[in-house]
């Protein structure tokens, strides 16, 4: 069972646990550094000397060089700039989709777990049904009904991946419901939504944070796949996935166009998953093995 830090020494121990885990895991440090860099680049892109749009057809398909670190694309645009701007979109979609997913999941999970009864049954039925449809199929089908673009893809990913979080949150809510302080609050007459906000959600927060980290990773993967199929981000906006879709046609001339965005997707997803692992270490009370009788 995951619990929040109970007091200062507990907090200190958790931080120590994380730092010690970091020290032993070079990859974890590298991942954190990478995330900081990539997020910084994405946020600062407008003020950096990047130019993703100017075409220069005479210089198309230039491989990476000192002038164009990532080379140029099929109509001569600086690929580094395009990849960074693509990253902005991919990260934005990942982040917003995750927020949507978490909000819906927490809402459904806490309400379902706390209220129980027929509300719980119905909500869980809905979760079951939505989980029954393979996500790829579901997401592509829904994209038929929504106009393709940034908003749609955030909605599509956010509204069709919340089920797992809802289940996790519901399970924790169910066990929290039996805790004495919650039962007392109920007994004293505090309304349900207040209990949920003040008692249940703070205790569920650790689970949510961990799920959020892996949620971003999944969202980025999903967005890339959808954009690759042409069902996600549309021109003139581009994300890593749509860059890859474009690169598909030019692999013979410019394989770097396919390698670079893909590499960034892999590194970003890997880094977010590593972050999720670190958060898990921070959040779980470490039982010293061997400290038994």
């Amino acid at each position: 069972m995951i619990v929040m830090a109970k007091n200062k020494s507990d907090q200190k121990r958790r931080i120590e646990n994380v730092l010690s885990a970091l020290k032993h895991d070079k990859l974890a440090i590298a991942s954190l550094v990478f995330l900081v860099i990539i997020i910084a680049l994405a946020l600062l892109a407008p003020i950096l000397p990047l130019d993703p749009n100017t075409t220069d057809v005479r210089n198309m398909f230039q491989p990476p060089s000192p002038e164009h670190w990532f080379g140029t694309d099929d109509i001569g645009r600086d690929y580094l700039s395009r990849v960074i701007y693509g990253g902005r979109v991919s990260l934005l979609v990942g982040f917003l989709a995750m927020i949507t997913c978490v909000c819906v999941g927490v809402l459904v999970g806490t309400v379902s777990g706390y209220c129980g009864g027929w509300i719980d049954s119905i909500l869980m039925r809905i979760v079951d049904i939505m989980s029954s449809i393979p996500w790829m199929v579901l997401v592509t089908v829904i994209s038929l009904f929504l106009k393709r673009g940034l908003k749609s893809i955030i909605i599509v990913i956010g509204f069709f991946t919340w089920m797992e979080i809802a289940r996790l949150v519901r399970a924790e809510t169910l066990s929290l419901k039996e805790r004495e302080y919650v039962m007392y609050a109920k007994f004293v007459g505090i309304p349900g939504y207040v209990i949920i906000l003040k008692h249940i959600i703070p205790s569920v927060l650790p689970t949510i944070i961990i799920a959020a980290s892996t949620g971003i990773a999944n969202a980025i993967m999903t967005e890339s796949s959808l954009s690759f199929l042409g069902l996600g981000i549309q021109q003139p906006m581009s994300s890593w996935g749509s860059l890859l879709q474009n690169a598909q046609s030019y692999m013979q001339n410019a394989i770097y166009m396919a390698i670079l965005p893909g590499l960034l997707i892999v590194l970003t997803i890997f880094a977010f998953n590593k972050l999720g692992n670190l958060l898990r270490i921070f959040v779980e009370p470490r039982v010293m093995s061997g400290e038994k009788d």
Partner: protein
Amino acid sequence: MAKYIIKRILAAIPMVLIITVICFALMNLAPYDAIDAMTTPNMSPETVALIKAKYGYDQPVYIQYIRWLDGLINGNFGYSIVTHQSISADLAIRIPNTIKLILPAYLLAYALAIVLGLIAGSHKNKWADKLIDGICAIGIALPTFWVSMLLIYFLGYKLNVLPIVGMHTIGQENSMIDYLRHFLMPFIALFLSFLPDATRYVRSSTITQYSEDYVMVQQAFGASKAEIMFKHVCKNVLLPIITKLGMALPMLVTGAIITETIFGWPGVGPYFVKAIQGMDYPIVMVILVLSSTLVILGNLLSDILYSLTDPRIKDLG
């Protein structure tokens, strides 16, 4: 136990029905429907009405639903708006092709995952585990379509070892070697996509088993490491995995949509994607219902297998 199975089957039926209702509702909410595909703006209203009546679109919605459902149950999946071909005939060719690709990749991936996961779990935090788990962490981050692209480039184009499109070279449909050459790259891509998750699952299961009390009790009675692994942990890890295989059922139809599309493998994947891109609703809806039903059936199968093999549950029913 039979009671448990029957209960589960009865619970699954309403789920499937609800899915069909949802699919049918979606189909009717679509901004563009079958009639639009068959008529042009120039046709007179009478012609349109005739066409509607011919295909039964003039009936009330619930009657349409019942006819559609009836058709589904009898294997009549309707017709494509675009090609006017029978969907069931198309699927009858496409689904086996998909299965031919996915089944070997899935089974082999799980076989290797079991070996790697057991090794990793029994050597937790030692170098073997760190290596295997590290590779899995990277593997999970690899988009399948990207791996496919790279495979096509390096093996297909650069080294020119393998063909990059389709299932056969024209004229060589009977050649096994030719088939295998076409088969290899999409197989590798799928295998690599299934492997990391499966390995992680086995690893986690193995670690859990090793931390159970009964392992220490076995050690206290002199069991060697090998005995503990092969006589106890293996069994306890494999049992849930076998039951999990029920979940592979829907994979056999929709598990490789992107990969098949990239490689031009004539399975359900490209069929579905083309239907999406062309707004060919009947096809989309049939595949939706089919895959969802398979998920539900897969869950059912897993539960049944579990109740048959786990002695603790066998007795409950």
